[in-house]
């Protein structure tokens, strides 16, 4: 056994104490490792799950949608303008919301495009229409868009199962469900009519699958110009779709845009509020699990070190007798706590990573594709290592203080 002189005194003693009580050390390291592995695996699982949900939500939706402000009715005056004995009408009827375009949408789009957080802005005309073929008819939401911009937000090209997405002035894109309901194939003509009496005949250029039955039966896409003439919105846009560099900044930026432009700005978070409540609940549950696992790891380390201080009382006394300072004794036990935490975290990181690989291989969809991608985030591993080491240090504080305060006379006599 060669002396390890390259180590400071405290580190050498801490390592030797841990090595001498190797069974005890092994058990607590395995205990910490399991805790860390649970934290890493759970976090990766939830992050992957949430990322998967977010991805699914955002493949069919812009991060922010800007609409013209709703029509409002304001009372002619307020009670302060009226005589003291006069009463204002209690009920104000909400007016009918007619389809209307965004005022000066081109300049708004330019302003938005200059914001550093904004990636793409795409104008569109939205409206409802009835699609008829023979005796069958279906009501649909029509999106009239500029393909070169819109496809950068909604990757419709990737969703096409038949035909092309490069829609023109006399063509239309419909979903798989709608095509099946109406019994149409590529190139078949469809009669598209609106409530204002406009009727167009458009050929089916492509059939898409958005991954959702409802979406595949209710949506149809055409060029913006076609939709403008169809809904009587010549040169206008009823909506501006916006994508951002940071999807989680959507609500903040939506509010910012709303206050600057006066338009109604809805972030994807707002339009999917229930989903976000579920995400928040998951995150809270994950944090609670992390906290309690961390707590149990901390108490585990502390209990082992308390026992170690009792077991090593005599050795502490001897060290004190030979001139070792209280602070050095304290460092020895703090280091043991830190090393236990770090060792357990390293082992836990390996177990966690292994569990993630096994999960990815075992948990598959019916078609054999992966259920969702779990991300091996380096930051998560580094955080776990740092946190476990800090937990070890903190947990060792009480035992270390106890060791440092031991009366050497009593300790040697033990």
């Amino acid at each position, binding site marked *: 056994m060669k*002396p390890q002189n390259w180590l400071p005194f405290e580190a050498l*003693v801490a390592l030797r104490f841990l090595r001498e009580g190797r069974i005890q050390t092994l058990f607590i390291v395995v205990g910490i490792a399991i805790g860390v592995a649970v934290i890493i695996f759970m976090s990766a699982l939830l992050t992957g799950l949430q990322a998967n949900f977010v991805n699914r939500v955002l493949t069919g939706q812009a991060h922010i949608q800007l609409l013209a402000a709703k029509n409002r009715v304001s009372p002619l005056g307020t009670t302060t303008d009226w005589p003291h004995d006069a009463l204002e009408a209690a009920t104000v009827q909400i007016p009918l919301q007619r389809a209307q375009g965004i005022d000066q949408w081109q300049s708004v789009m330019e302003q938005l495009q200059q914001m550093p957080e904004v990636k793409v802005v795409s104008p569109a005309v939205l409206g409802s229409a009835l699609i008829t073929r023979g005796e069958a008819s279906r009501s649909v939401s029509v999106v009239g868009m500029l393909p070169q911009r819109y496809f950068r937000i909604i990757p419709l090209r990737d969703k096409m199962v038949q035909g092309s997405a490069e829609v023109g002035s006399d063509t239309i894109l419909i979903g798989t469900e709608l095509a099946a309901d109406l019994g149409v194939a590529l190139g078949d003509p469809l009669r598209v009519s609106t409530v204002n009496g406009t009727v167009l005949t458009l050929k089916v250029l492509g059939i898409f699958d958005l991954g959702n039955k409802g979406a595949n039966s209710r949506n149809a896409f055409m060029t913006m110009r076609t939709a403008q003439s169809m809904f009587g919105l010549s040169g206008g846009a009823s909506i501006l779709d916006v994508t951002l560099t940071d999807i989680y900044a959507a609500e903040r930026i939506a509010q910012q845009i709303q206050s600057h432009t006066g338009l109604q700005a809805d972030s994807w978070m707002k339009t999917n509020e229930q989903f976000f409540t579920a995400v928040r609940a998951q995150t809270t549950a994950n944090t609670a699990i992390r906290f309690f696992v961390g707590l149990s790891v901390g108490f585990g380390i502390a209990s082992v070190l308390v026992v170690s201080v009792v077991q090593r009382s005599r050795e502490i006394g001897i060290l004190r007798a030979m*001139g070792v300072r209280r602070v050095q004794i304290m460092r020895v036990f703090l280091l043991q706590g830190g090393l236990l935490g770090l060792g357990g975290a390293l082992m836990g990181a390996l177990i966690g990573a292994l569990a993630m690989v096994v999960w990815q291989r075992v948990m598959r969809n019916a078609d054999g594709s992966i259920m969702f991608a779990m991300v091996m985030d380096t930051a998560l591993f580094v955080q776990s290592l740092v946190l476990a080491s800090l937990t070890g240090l903190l947990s060792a504080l009480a035992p270390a203080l106890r060791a440092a305060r031991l009366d050497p006379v009593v300790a040697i006599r033990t």
Partner: protein
Amino acid sequence: MTAQSNTPVAQPILELQGLRKSFNVGADNETEVLHGIDLKLYPGDFCAVIGPSGSGKSTLLNIVGLLDRPSSGSLWIDGMQTTALNDAKLTQLRGHRIGFVFQYHHLLSAFSALENVMMPLYADRGFRDAQMRERAAGLLDSVGMSPWLHAPANRLSGGQQQRVAVARALAMRPGLILADEPTGNLDTHSADGVFALFRKVCKEQSTAVLFVTHNPLLSARCERTIEVVDGKIKDGGFP
């Protein structure tokens, strides 16, 4: 009982004046175990401390070793008044000027013989690695433990462990060695060997040795003997 000593030509390495120690101070059961001890020890003194169990020998040794504080009186180590020093200063003084050897040798079982001897030097941080190893190996050689330099401490026999403990006590070249019944747990042959070792250290390095023993044969071989009875030095406190 002999009361010889070296001629006091130098400053005493240890001096006690009116040293008292009480336990449970202020409580109903307050007990004074040392009642005004006066003692001087010079470099090269080899002094046995004898007395019945419970007479206060260990308490005296703990106070002299700066592991415990006196209730009153004065204690000088190498000319330094210690009663007003804080814990850090006492620890530093103890580490540099005093070596301990206990009855049950008390080696650190997680370390080898060499590492046990290096330990005080290592903790002091004032030495280079090669220097520490060289000095520790030399000390182990001087106590006849060269073949077991890298043997784990807990695999050595009782006599061997006590030899390592003596080498460890000498690591910092202290002026005073306190040995609390160092031969009490050894067979006669090993006890003789360890005693001879102390004599050798005392003679060759002029280190003062305060040697607590219950063995009258060993105390009779010391140049100076003090007898502690009921918390007082009955005989031999001053040369």
